[in-house]
């Protein structure tokens, strides 16, 4: 399980945009987003390179908290 915070999400569409990109990352089985905190929990079937996560989040137009 991987947990990180994404900055800039403000509505349920933001949640959908970010989830869609993360679900497309190889190895990601599920994405859970808490809009109020920005925390995202990934369930994965293998370790995921943080750079891949960052790339996916940025592709959706948001940023991973440093």
């Amino acid at each position: 399980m991987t947990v990180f915070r994404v900055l800039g999400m403000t509505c349920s569409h933001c949640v959908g945009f970010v989830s869609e990109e993360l679900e497309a990352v190889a190895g990601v089985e599920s994405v859970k987003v808490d809009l109020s905190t920005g925390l995202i929990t990934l369930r994965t079937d293998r370790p995921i390179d943080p750079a891949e996560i960052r790339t996916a989040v940025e592709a959706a137009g948001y940023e991973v908290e440093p």
Partner: protein
Amino acid sequence: MLIFDGMSDLSAREFVADFYESFTREVVAGADAAAVVDRYYTPDIEQVADGVTLDRQRLIDHLRPVRKNVVSCTYDVHEAIRTGNRLAARFTIHAETRRGRTISTEVYMFGELAPDGRIRHTTQATRDVSAP
């Protein structure tokens, strides 16, 4: 005596549909985000959605990812009431993303309008009603 100074439900529904469809069309088309926001919202806009508050700048910032991800957007306005500067509506937004998915969100909105028809304040609760 009952006094009612509101729009008909149909007119209120048309107002809400026209407002959001026109706003989104301009956003997706790539118009200057600040200029678009200023055409539809007053400078002191406060939009509270699911407990998250957006002021003018945060609303403008929000348009960048919307523009990046949304290909098209339609609004089904199920019901709406407008009385003077007060507006209430229940509607569903269907946003088609660049990956081909449709994100559907039902919105319960209460709002306040400026005299020129721009939105000054809204409080919204939303729920995801996307097809599985």
